[in-house]
């Protein structure tokens, strides 16, 4: 039971139910679609990049609590970050949910740290990382649908 509480923390349930930055971003100049064939979750991430900075970011799609909350908290965390900073956050987040995090990384994660419980649920890692993979595809700009498989 404690495992479950670690996974479904209040903040995750909150964001899963009422995601922030949800919807189309009218003036986006980068976008990508992500897909998890395992559960059928689909997500689209819209990014407005100015120079080297993520000026605005939104997402839409349907998914489980983990993938929706992850997208929601990710969009909050990335606003105003440079590409390099975004990439660093992705690495730290990925390490966190796969159970490979270093102490120093966790400190920089802020709200994203609530996903630490995911590492105890290997089948849910893909849910937590779907939005991040989609974001990277959007930033790299090839516009392809990315899949978690």
């Amino acid at each position: 039971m404690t495992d479950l509480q670690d996974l479904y923390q209040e903040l995750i349930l909150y964001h899963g139910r009422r995601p922030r930055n949800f919807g189309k971003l009218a003036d986006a100049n980068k976008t990508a679609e992500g897909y998890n064939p395992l559960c059928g979750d689909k997500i689209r991430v819209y990014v407005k990049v100015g120079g080297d900075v993520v000026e605005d970011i939104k997402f839409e799609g349907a998914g489980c609590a983990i993938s929706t909350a992850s997208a929601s908290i990710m969009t909050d965390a990335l606003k105003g970050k440079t590409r390099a900073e975004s990439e660093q956050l992705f690495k730290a987040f990925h390490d966190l949910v796969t159970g490979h995090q270093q102490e120093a990384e966790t400190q920089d994660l802020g709200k994203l740290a609530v996903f630490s419980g995911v590492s105890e649920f290997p089948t849910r890692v893909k849910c937590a990382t779907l939005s991040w993979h989609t974001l990277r595809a959007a930033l790299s700009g090839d516009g392809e649908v990315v899949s978690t498989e």
Partner: protein
Amino acid sequence: MKAIGKEVKSKMTDHAPQLDVHKIRQDFPMLKQLAYGKPLAYLDNAATSQKPQAVIDALMRYYTNDNSNIHRGVHLLSERATQHYEEAREKVRQFVNAKEKREIIFVRGTTEALNLIAHSYGRANVNAGDEVLITALEHHSNIVPWQMLCSERSARLRVAPINDEGEVLLDDFAQLINERTKLVSIAHVSNALGTINPVREMVEMAHRQNIPVMIDGAQAAPHTRIDVQELDCDFYAFSGHKVYGPTGIGVLYGKSELLEAISPYQGGGDMIASVTFDKTTYNTLPYKFEAGTPNIAGTIGLGAAIDYVSEIGLDSIARHEHDLLSYGTEALSQIPGLRLIGTAKKKAGVLSFVLEGIHPHDVGTVLDREGIAIRTGHHCAMPLMERFGVPATARASLAVYNTREEIDTLVAGIQKVKEVFAL
């Protein structure tokens, strides 16, 4: 017994002896384990069933005493392995009531059987402008091979629609059969919804226009008695692992005259009569379709599984599962916010559902920690999920060893899910 109508069927199962589920559970070592410290409630049987000790012993016995290649050695072991392998074929013949043993082809599973027919029958008979007819409730394995065939042959895949309960609309199905139709391929039982299709009737509709019918019996074999002669289907396939046998072994039944007429699926050893560099003469049925060293252990294991279910009796199994299904349907229907997907009048042991505001994947994770194994996702039937307007469902599926207590555990688990996700 001509038509396997509802009345005939229910009368049959009503008279079947009641089985002792607690005794049966003793036969399955897997069920004794705990999951996260809780008794395992294994409700993912439509994905694969657990194996009775008799099947595990048969595999062990084969590898301990008889392991050898079949149909070629003159030595004692090869003779013994061949004998056990061919005995399994006879068991399968009886299990589906085929006329002849040579109509039973061993394959990897239902998927391979469907691909075999798409390849060997399809490529010989489906040409530009022709049609293949399936239904809206098919598993991907009864969609994709036909799509591949149709795209290669510039043919058209037609799909008979279903209603909101998950039943095939028979009038539409009948209307879709026309002179361009070259093959009909339908599920006997839907994996995602549990719907039992009136296959006897559907075969008759197709046969009126001389169109052969393939039946995907993957979900039927563990739950209902199969009689291919009574169904009069042209091809029938099922998988060993869903009927308490090993993985990697399955069966394709085909009417001998049809199997005789089509080309082999794969070339290699055992499927030949003679080979020169100019010409190869193919072996007779069933070996023509069994190229290479087959899954000998799996086949013998499947034979043991068939012995096991036959001893309990498929009518008794059907009766037990039907009782659980009614009990489960009743219990789940009373949970506020729960919607059952698939409410056909004739159903096998599948309870597919969605909970309002909670994604099936989250349902599955919480249930898992309660020791309850169910499947969540699209069940390899994405077009069907789209039909019901859901991205996925949670699916509990029943087997001979499941109990009412396990249904109660499921219901309690769902309450737990609702607590975790309380608004």
